[in-house]
């Protein structure tokens, strides 16, 4: 199995190099022909004062995002510790059971 695996891997490398080369050589002009969506920002530029809020207020979105992240992480940690606690309880119970049966 190892021999065919290494044969496969060499083949993988060759195939990927060929495909990547093909894509790069001919993909460029095709990509250039795409419709132009709005230009993304190339870099973030800091500014002295915050501009006046317009249209959708930013604060609820900003605070909401942080609550989502911190809340999500908190609940995951909670879920993990609960699961771990339950399993460890079961482990202790079964170990006790085994010891008792070992004695009996």
């Amino acid at each position, binding site marked *: 199995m190892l021999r065919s695996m290494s044969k496969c891997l060499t083949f993988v490398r060759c195939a990927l190099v060929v495909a990547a080369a093909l894509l790069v050589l001919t993909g460029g002009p095709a990509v250039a022909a795409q419709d132009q969506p709005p230009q993304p*920002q190339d870099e973030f530029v800091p500014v002295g004062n915050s501009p006046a809020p317009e249209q959708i207020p930013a604060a609820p979105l900003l605070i909401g995002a942080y609550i989502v992240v911190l809340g999500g992480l908190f609940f995951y940690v909670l879920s993990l510790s609960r699961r771990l606690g339950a399993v460890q309880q079961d*482990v202790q119970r079964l170990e006790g059971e085994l010891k008792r049966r070992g004695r009996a």
Partner: protein
Amino acid sequence: MPKWFSPTAILCGLMFVVSPVLIARSPDESAMGMVYKIYYYHMPSAWMFLLAPLVCGVSSALFLARGRAEDDRRAWAAAELTVLFGALTLITGPLWARRAWGTWWVWDARLTSSLVGWMIGWAYLILRRYGGPGSDKLAAGVALFGAVNVPFIFISVNYWRTIHPPTTVVPKLPVSMGVPLWFCVTAFLLLFILLMTMRLRLEVARTRLDALYVALDE
């Protein structure tokens, strides 16, 4: 838990507590105002969302090649973190986009492939839960395809003209924005390691439990 776990957990917790202060003190951005600050949590989440399937894929490849249970456990843990950080990224992104782009979602290359990557994480977890015996190897096969999706997500934003900021934004950040960002990235990376450790511990305990059930049956 290993000895380094508690001090690292305390440090990580402190970093998360301090981070909103650092972020509040960072300057606003000229085009997006204050809403861009979602980025300080969105981007580290996104990086962890790209790291997790890579860890899952490498562990799965090792598991298929060597057959060791610890590789399988690591793959499963990494798949859960893929779903977690993916959810955080895919929620904070649209919250930012609503203000910055005027829309919650666009079907461009990066967002679509990110959504796909997230769903592959879910598919892995569903398979492990409902696939029955032998699903560890099957899931490892799925994880390999998920890992292949990751470079596509990362480079798609540079090769396809999309509305999403390209990867060149990060190296060009001024110090006032770079410091909070790298602080948050460090906090998230520490958190990633801590969560992986906890999840692995759970898996080891489950394996022990299964062995005990078998021993009791004998």
